[in-house]
């Protein structure tokens, strides 16, 4: 079974600064997808960024980028120029490329990000 570990229950960052959220995972698959989801207090889960394991280039979406270290099974999220609206729970998630698994997401426990003015 695949497991996703987020070792930081809470993180804090000042507005305009940069913060990195950590995630490690365990899998025996060689190809898979990794995701970061954001869940604001309103509870609607929103996709932030995703990375396919066979792609060596780290994914980037505006102020959000990842550091994907496949050998170390590490997938961290960097948020640059943090904004008050970035405050939320952030979940790291994994899905294997197996059709019969249904591509359901395996989530970590989340990291609560606080952004201070």
């Amino acid at each position: 079974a695949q497991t996703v570990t987020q070792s930081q229950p809470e993180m804090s960052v000042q507005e305009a600064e940069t913060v990195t959220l950590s995630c490690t995972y365990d899998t025996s698959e060689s190809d898979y997808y990794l995701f970061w989801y954001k869940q604001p207090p309103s509870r609607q889960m929103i996709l932030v960024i995703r990375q396919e394991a066979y792609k060596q280039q780290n994914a980037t979406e505006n102020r959000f980028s990842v550091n994907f270290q496949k050998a170390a099974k590490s997938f961290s999220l960097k948020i640059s120029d943090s904004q008050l609206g970035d405050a939320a729970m952030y979940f790291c998630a994994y899905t294997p490329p197996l059709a019969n698994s249904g591509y359901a997401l395996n989530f970590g426990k989340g990291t609560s990000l606080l952004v201070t003015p």
Partner: protein
Amino acid sequence: EAGVAQSPRYKIIEKRQSVAFWCNPISGHATLYWYQQILGQGPKLLIQFQNNGVVDDSQLPKDRFSAERLKGVDSTLKIQPAKLEDSAVYLCASSLGRIFTDTQYFGPGTRLTVL
């Protein structure tokens, strides 16, 4: 494009009572997921449908939980009878479901409190 709709948003019941949640996925999305999110944890898959067939229900407590997807569109999740440990947010998500790169879109969830 309308998002994933869920109702009710909140529900409070007493243990041993029954409750049902409804989900309307994004139009055209073949795959529908129900996740359970207990406070302080990440969502956990309960059941997944591809059109109106079940793909994975291995983590669904079938002695008390049931789910169906009507005509491959709307879905209902039922708990009967509810236990205290069922208190959680129930999230519905949908995707095109063609390949694993298809993004899952989540609804706002239903917060269930069992007293």
